[in-house]
């Protein structure tokens, strides 16, 4: 006779695999959360149980224009990360190419990468005004340093023998970049792009929250102000969802670029 667990859960879920591991972890986390909240171990007001959070999602769609906020934040992050990627790769290329600049400024970029740039938001507010430009600019500035650093690192570490191979085949400068330097450093550059995306998202949502303008940050601020705590958590879930979407997209882009290089 089979053990009774097999009747409760499908076999694939019990067999150790990454999908079931994720599912089980999340289920466990939600269960602990639910119990802790319902049993009063955590303040039910500050941390409502999941069973109260999930039903409010529908409310967010009907009463709060969740779709609009989500799209807005997604778009702003996309623009900021895109600009950051472009500028960051150019900057990284320059620091790689110009030895003096590389030696002089790389440490600065590393220091900026670690600084809480979001605190500069008043400056951006003064320059761009209380609008989407401020948010995108803030996100771009935050996403630049990791892309610059990782692009430089990737290019610096291209093995010189690969460049020599290109030289012996008479590659033009542009071919050297396109056919050797770029593909060889792509995996490292992508690490930078992913970090840049995370930095952009954090700053976009953060600035939306701080200046109370558009998107998920504003939505979270509003829900908090109205003590719609369950709704606030639901909105935070959607921010996490945005980040998952972006990770999925970069992963697709990376596989596509790696196979096309």
């Amino acid at each position: 006779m089979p053990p009774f667990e097999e009747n409760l859960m499908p076999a694939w879920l019990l067999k150790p695999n990454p999908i079931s591991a994720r599912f089980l972890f999340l289920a466990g986390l939600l269960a602990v959360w639910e119990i802790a909240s319902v049993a009063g171990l955590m303040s039910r007001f500050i941390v409502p149980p999941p069973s109260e959070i999930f039903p409010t999602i529908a409310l967010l769609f009907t009463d709060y224009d969740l779709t609009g906020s989500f799209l807005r934040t997604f778009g702003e992050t996309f623009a900021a990360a895109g600009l950051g990627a472009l500028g960051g790769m150019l900057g990284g290329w320059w620091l790689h190419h110009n030895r003096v600049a590389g030696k002089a400024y790389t440490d600065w970029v590393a220091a900026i990468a670690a600084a809480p740039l979001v605190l500069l938001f008043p400056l951006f507010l003064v320059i761009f005004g209380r609008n989407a430009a401020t948010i995108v600019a803030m996100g771009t500035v935050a996403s630049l340093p990791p892309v610059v650093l990782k692009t430089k690192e990737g290019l610096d570490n291209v093995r010189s023998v690969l460049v020599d191979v290109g030289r012996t085949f008479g590659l033009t400068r542009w071919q050297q970049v396109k056919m050797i330097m770029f593909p060889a450093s792509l995996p490292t550059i992508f690490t930078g792009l992913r970090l840049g995306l995370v930095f952009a998202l954090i700053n976009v949502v953060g600035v939306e929250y701080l200046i109370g303008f558009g998107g998920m940050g504003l939505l979270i601020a509003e829900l908090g102000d109205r003590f719609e705590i369950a709704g606030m958590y639901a909105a935070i879930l959607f921010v996490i969802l945005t980040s998952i979407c972006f990770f999925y997209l970069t992963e697709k882009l990376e596989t596509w670029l790696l196979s096309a290089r």
Partner: protein
Amino acid sequence: MSDMTALDNTAADTLPTLRIDRVTKSFHTAKGKITAVDDVSLDIRQGEFISIIGPSGCGKSTLMNMVGGLIADFDGQILLDGKAVRGCQPSIGMVFQEESTFPWRTAIENVAFPLEAAGMERDRRVARARELLDLVGLTGFENHYPSELSGGMRQRIAIARTLAFEPKVLLMDEPFAALDEQTRLLLGDKVVQIQQQLRQTTLLITHNISEAVHLSDRVLIMTFRPGRIKRVVEINLPRPRSSEMMGSEKFAKFVAEIWHDLREEASKGLRESEAAAAAR
């Protein structure tokens, strides 16, 4: 010119494919001037297979990099079919000691690389790359990435990739140094076989004496710093050759002869590196 006639003792009247004429190269380093290659002259005939053997640091790679065009700043002249060589050019191909396949390209894409860069259309370059993979014995591995192949297979990809450009002169800088002894022997057989088939003028750097004897028409022994040509040994073993003749008496005689000359230089190199280690 006396050393020149000593090197070029058979084909005096035909134009050599490759002429290295009084080439000298010094590096200026923090510790002072190092003369890596000192006044080297050598004529190489069309289709000839030459090995250069010498202790580590004697300037073998420097010499090869000058011929290959990677070092363009040197004294003296290098002439290919009478035209001066400075900088890389398609008629001279190089195979490197280090791992040099592109990890993001499959075997066939690696081999097609120079053809792609030269703008050959896809179908033609793929067909050509397939032939070359077949030549180096890698049929069936076209779509494997280098990381999925052994070191010997990767080095064969690198050789096929260089051959794809159909160079007149093939330069190989210790191409088998990272491989185990058996692979090295088998790959050596492959290289002689291909070279006899394509009749490429070939310059091989090695520090393996039997490999040099096995593959070459002539073996050049270089002195330890400054790198000069100490002696040229004509290997008049019959062709076709294979690694099986390594047991023969004649083969052993060549190896012993070369070692006799090389030994002195190798001990100089060893003494110097020990002295450098002691000074530290």
